[in-house]
């Protein structure tokens, strides 16, 4: 790799790694340490092929690698993921929305991992249905139905949750 390529890679890492970390945390619910490891792993793959992909939307490629790795990690660690899915303790500020938010995240976590990935990509990353489909390697129709089903499931469970509480 030329110095210029190296510099471009550094810029890419500086600009994108936090966003990739967020995606990893949201999709697989890994601890921060695991998520960092995962993103480093993804970036290493990107570094290996940097010469080829740097002019061909490296961001989309990186996101794809991270999402796939996150799905794999989640599948390997399904049972212990819940303890690690936590916010730093110092964000314990009480607000009226906190409980709703936690319940929402709880429901999000309960979804199948690919469905959750679709929701993260659509509503967190703000990708279009077509972009999400390309990234997940499925059809636009599948993205539509997975997103709709995921939202419906959350809505339904939030409904029953409110019912139980009230």
């Amino acid at each position: 790799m030329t110095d210029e390529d190296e510099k471009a890679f550094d810029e890419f890492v500086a600009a994108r790694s936090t966003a990739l970390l967020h995606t990893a945390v949201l999709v697989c619910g890994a601890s921060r340490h695991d998520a960092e490891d995962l993103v480093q792993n993804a970036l290493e793959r990107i570094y290996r092929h940097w010469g080829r992909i740097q002019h061909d939307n490296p961001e989309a490629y990186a996101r794809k690698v991270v999402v796939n790795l996150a799905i794999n990690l989640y599948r390997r660690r399904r049972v212990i993921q819940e303890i690690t899915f936590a916010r730093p303790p110092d964000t314990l500020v009480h607000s009226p929305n906190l409980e709703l938010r936690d319940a929402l995240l709880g429901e999000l976590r309960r979804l199948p991992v690919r469905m959750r990935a679709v929701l993260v990509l659509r509503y967190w990353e703000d990708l279009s249905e077509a972009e999400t489909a390309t990234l997940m390697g499925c059809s636009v129709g599948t993205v539509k139905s997975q997103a709709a089903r995921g939202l419906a499931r959350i809505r339904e469970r939030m409904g029953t949750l409110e019912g139980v509480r009230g």
Partner: protein
Amino acid sequence: MRLEEELAEAMRAQVEGIHAPSVMGAVVRHRHRVRKVRVRTAGVVLATVTVAVVMPAGRQIGSGLAVNLEARPGSASTQEATSTQGAASTQGDMSVRVDTSGKVEVPTVIDLTRERAKAVLKAAGFKAVVLKDLRHGWVTRQVPDGGQLVPAGSTVSLVLAAEPVPVPTVPNSLLSTLAPAEKGSEPTLRDPGDGREFGGVRFGYLPKDLIWTRSTTGVASGEDGSIFWRESGLPSDRYSVRAVVFQRKTTLRFKTAGVRDAVVTYEVGAAPTILWAPRPDLMVQVELSVEYAAKLTKADYATKLGKDVKADKDSYADYAAKFGKAVIGRELRKIANAITATE
């Protein structure tokens, strides 16, 4: 607010404060180099084998290299370490970083074999101590971690396992060593019978009104089995309390003097969990679902203050922030304390 927006907002809150470390680029390059070295080493081994077949003398070249790597004294200075690396062609890319205070960067030896890890550490001027080992194992954990700056000549502890051992995610400070799964050890889990006995432990205490939902066994991810209980009103795919029994020797060596020393994690949005080892080789993880934990806190609030949660939401939020952890911790410890080994 629409659900999509609420969801995005919740996700934002979830990742708030998580930033990529600034050294990410450097770490990635380092990993890339280590990987290249590993591939190259494999190549050298292959080449040596080929030569050995064609011409027996080749074997001596191979063992000569090994001796060169092995025979370094632990106290080798960084200066020597650098020259060793020059000599050992397989390590060409591993440079040693030394900062102004004379501290040296620990090389990462995870995934290397015992011999290679020791050779790499010695070459960099560290002493290597193997804490746990199965023959032909690979390094799964090292303390201190690679990349940390420590005084030259420090000791690096290694844990080896036959295959990568999934590490239960507890704070690093508590994770001293993790014994590798013993070869051929199969989980011996039984069905719970009365819903209290599972995987060689008996749960002497459970919160009232819980019914046994289901149990799972033998998942490949390292935990040996889970048992779930739910409140009688909940649908059968939900649970209120879950316990995971780790029956292989994947036990954390934290203090097990009493249940007071058990690890409790309590973080907003995550299921509160206790890790408790009734015996050194038996670990149980009990966790409450987020909703059930909230319910316990609410019940406690109602009993203690004689007030309804709905009557004064702010006062409840205050109470939960102050005492939620204690209330939930008490309940988790109560469950953990009553766990006994049946075998």
